[in-house]
């Protein structure tokens, strides 16, 4: 045998051994089988459906023993009468508290959730979820003692999904409008609780209910309930007395419902409804002659989860923010030759500027105030004052003062911040530094995220299971 043949035989043997080894290796289970990650591997059904029972909005009512209070002052809707979350009452509030904290006037048990109250004419209105009744329950309580004056409810199955209740009713002297977690809109008489009308937005408008349910708080403007179904119609106006839909804005931009609410602003003598949905932000005319017309739209601000509502500055600038890494954007609205245009001025990541995951920032004395989200780096969960002109954090509460996802409000030039665990902190609304005045633990519960309300020098605040009314007034005011 010559060398060539020997070489070929050896090569062939090595090749065969290699092939055999590879086949054995691949078939021996040493390498796990390759799985392809494609949609559908979670066994999600094509149409999960809520499995809900048929809902008859406003079906049940009951009168109870509570008596309306003579306490004046109101908080008629989400973020108050002027949509700015600032109480304009001329009542001096205490600068500091006893060791025991401010006086707790009353408290009532609630279903698990984050729904918060509106106040009008000595009555407190809250859309609760009652697990025993399996119902959205609009409860009217006395501002004096929290006793229930009346309640109206309808059966609807809501499963716990980071709590159940979410929204704040809108109330006038005559009407209360509420939106339930599964987008059931109800209008009742504010005094008697008499049912006026109801709309199932999912069934009647094809609304896609947001993840963790809707948090859109309704708006009543000149006797009309203004709602953003974000289904077939983007926005509608409903006569509160009759339930007649008076105007509608077709959803040509295919905007889906977010957790944000409609905010009203004025610019160039025009009254505008501003809504930040999933798919973009829109401005709709609120003027009588042109009500429902689209004035501007931008998809420069478009995120999959948006909880905070737009914050108009009054000079055409609108600040928008969201969680899940979205950060924030400052938009500029201009008006020329009858045409509105909106363009971004700047965008910031949560670590670069002001951002908020859940609560809407407050614009006060030229500054923005908010709690930064958990992805804001070293300033995570700190309460900050931000200058939107210089794009700088003016001051932050510091690493020893973090507030989670809690709500905050301004009254009597003081900022009140409630943290996740029910600790209320009051500070000067300072333009230069974090200046805490007092702090007290009001409640023992968790997830105290429902927005705060102030009326008659009293504050209404809640944790996941209980509503509290506390007295904030200074000594000479009580």
């Amino acid at each position, binding site marked *: 045998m010559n060398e060539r043949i020997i070489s070929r035989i050896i090569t062939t043997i090595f090749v065969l051994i290699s092939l055999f080894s590879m086949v054995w290796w691949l078939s021996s289970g040493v390498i796990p089988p390759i799985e392809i990650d494609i*949609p559908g591997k979670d066994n999600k059904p094509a149409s999960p459906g809520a499995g809900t029972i048929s809902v008859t909005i406003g079906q049940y009512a009951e009168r109870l023993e509570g008596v309306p209070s003579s306490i004046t002052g109101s908080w008629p809707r989400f973020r108050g009468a002027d949509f700015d979350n600032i109480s304009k009452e001329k009542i001096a509030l205490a600068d500091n508290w006893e060791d025991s904290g401010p006086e707790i006037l009353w408290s009532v048990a609630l279903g698990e959730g984050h729904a918060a109250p509106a106040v009008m004419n000595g009555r407190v209105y809250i859309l609760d979820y009652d697990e025993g009744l399996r119902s959205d329950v609009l409860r009217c309580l006395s501002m004096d003692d929290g006793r229930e004056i009346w309640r109206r409810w309808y059966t609807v199955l809501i*499963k716990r999904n980071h709590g159940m209740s979410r929204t704040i009713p809108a109330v006038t002297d005559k009407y209360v409008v509420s939106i339930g977690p599964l987008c059931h809109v109800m209008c009742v008489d504010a005094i008697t609780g008499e049912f006026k009308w109801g709309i199932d937005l999912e069934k009647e408008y094809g609304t896609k209910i947001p993840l963790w349910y809707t948090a859109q708080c309704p708006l009543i403007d000149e006797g009309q309930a203004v709602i953003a179904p974000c289904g077939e119609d983007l926005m509608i106006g409903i006569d509160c007395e009759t339930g007649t839909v008076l105007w509608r804005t077709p959803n040509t931009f295919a905007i889906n419902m977010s957790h944000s609410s409609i905010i009203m602003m004025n610019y160039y003598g025009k009254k505008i409804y501003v809504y930040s949905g999933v798919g973009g932000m829109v401005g709709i005319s609120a003027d009588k002659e042109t009500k429902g017309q689209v004035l501007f739209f931008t998809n420069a601000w478009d995120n999959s989860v948006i909880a905070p509502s737009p914050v108009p500055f009054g000079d055409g600038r609108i600040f928008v923010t969201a969680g899940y890494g979205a950060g924030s954007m400052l938009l500029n609205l201009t008006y020329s030759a009858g045409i509105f245009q909106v363009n971004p001025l700047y965008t910031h990541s949560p670590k670069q500027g002001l951002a908020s995951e859940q609560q809407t920032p407050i614009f006060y004395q030229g500054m923005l105030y908010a709690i930064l989200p958990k992805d804001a780096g070293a300033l995570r969960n700190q309460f900050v004052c931000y200058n939107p002109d210089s794009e700088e954090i003016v001051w932050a509460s510091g690493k020893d003062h973090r507030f989670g996802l809690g709500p905050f409000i301004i009254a009597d030039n003081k900022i009140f911040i409630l943290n996740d665990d029910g600790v209320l902190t009051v500070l000067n609304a300072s333009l230069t530094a974090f200046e805490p005045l007092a702090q007290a633990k009001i409640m023992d519960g968790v997830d105290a995220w429902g927005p705060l309300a102030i009326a008659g020098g009293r504050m209404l605040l809640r944790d996941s299971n209980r509503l509290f009314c506390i007295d904030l007034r200074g000594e000479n005011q009580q």
Partner: protein
Amino acid sequence: MAEADKEKNNNLSRRDFLRYGFRAIIGLGALSVAGHTLFSSKSHDMVWQLDPDKCIQCGRCATRCVLSPSAVKCVHAFAICGYCDLCSGYFRQPPFALDTAAENRLCPTSAIKRTYVEDPYYEYTIDQSLCIGCGKCVKGCGSFGNGSLFLQVMHDRCVNCNECSIAVTCPAKAYTRVPAHSPYLLKKAAEGSG
């Protein structure tokens, strides 16, 4: 006579020698066992663990362990999970769609399994054979969710080095020694939640 007795006592018999020898061996053996037990209980009954409340998800657990893949794995405290459809520990932000396609997922090794429970709930479980301990899911869950995902040193893998190579580089100083009979640390939020 007295001198004879003294001499007898000094001359150890073979039987006595063996008896004393065995006693000495047994005594030394008992001492060494006791000493070894004492010594080993001090050095080996403590193991390394990661305090989840200090962890900042820097990613070093995945790369600094002497083992490959790391002995650090993600675990899930189901009691504080929200079972959300949009899970920020499972999905990249923002996801293109809320489904199991690779382009939507945060985990680089597909170690988190998402399973539909009932509307609107989804369960997320960790396949520890695939987890490399990078902590990306933990960061996502902590940033926007309940923080139910967290990292732990798994003691079926950890070789308990005297000087843990992750601990020496951990920027949050989150590594600590814990008793071997209780080697895992729950997040504070998960304690007492069932």
